[in-house]
């Protein structure tokens, strides 16, 4: 279990936590996971919730589904950003055109009025 040697006290990989829940770790590695559980409420609560599950073999599917949902959430925002950008540019061009027309129109009107006076 060399790959587990450098776990920080409050950090463990999903794989290691799963192996712990399945009772597949050596007492030393189990102790390291428990140290992480004791030093982080997040890991402690999660391990408690997961260990109470009847079908732990479903966990990879559940995590996969949730990550898939997460990816769709982050992509939605990306699409929205892309859609919004051309609209913003269009509004900017329209605003500049309107302002130019008003300015030129105003100048011509004043110029015309002064000429007639």
């Amino acid at each position, binding site marked *: 279990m060399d790959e587990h040697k450098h776990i920080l006290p409050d950090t463990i990989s999903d794989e290691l936590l799963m192996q712990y829940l399945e009772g597949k770790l050596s007492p030393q590695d189990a102790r390291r996971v428990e140290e992480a559980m004791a030093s982080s409420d997040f890991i402690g609560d999660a391990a408690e919730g997961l*260990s109470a599950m009847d079908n732990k073999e479903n966990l990879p599917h559940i995590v996969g589904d949730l990550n898939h949902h997460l990816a769709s959430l982050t992509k939605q925002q990306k699409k929205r950003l892309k859609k919004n950008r051309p609209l913003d540019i269009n509004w900017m061009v329209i605003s500049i055109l309107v302002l130019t027309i008003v300015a030129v129109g105003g100048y011509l009107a004043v110029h015309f009025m002064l000429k007639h006076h």
Partner: protein
Amino acid sequence: MKDKFADITDEELLNKYYQSGNNEWLGALLERYTLLLFGTCMKYLKNETLAKDAVQQVFLKAITELAKYKVTYFKSWVYLVAKNHCLMQLRSKGKVILKEEMPDISSHEDLDIAALLHKEKDIVLLKECLLELGEEQQVCINLFYLHDKSYQQIAGDTGYEMMKVKSYIQNGKRNLKILMDKKMKGRK
């Protein structure tokens, strides 16, 4: 479950998100905690479907909230968001919430008993406080931190159930922190 950004820390991922506004960085960060979030929601809601829904709500909340303000301790923050969400769900269903289940804002500053044990002047204080804990908490903390025993070994030695051992250690640690804070303030 492979993390393609394994070499990048949470802090770096969060900074990349804040700099670019690209939600994909946030997605990569949240993905690291999917299993822990699901487990936490399972602990409180005790139902797979409800826990899955809760995690999806936490994802949505993280995407919305992090766009509004800066978070420094992402792991503690996302844990508190999940825990608060679950407690609110339970409260809306009229379930009683125990005081020890209430979110602890300072939880990112967990009491590092192992580190304290290496500081001589803190050992005396720690040992004093340890004696003020209930017997079960005292025994479990002693065996876990001072004798490096696993939960299973402690359960075997004491006859307590594994989950009880875990809760004695967690609650004992919380009580130790409260006691030590009190004593340290009293000395100032």
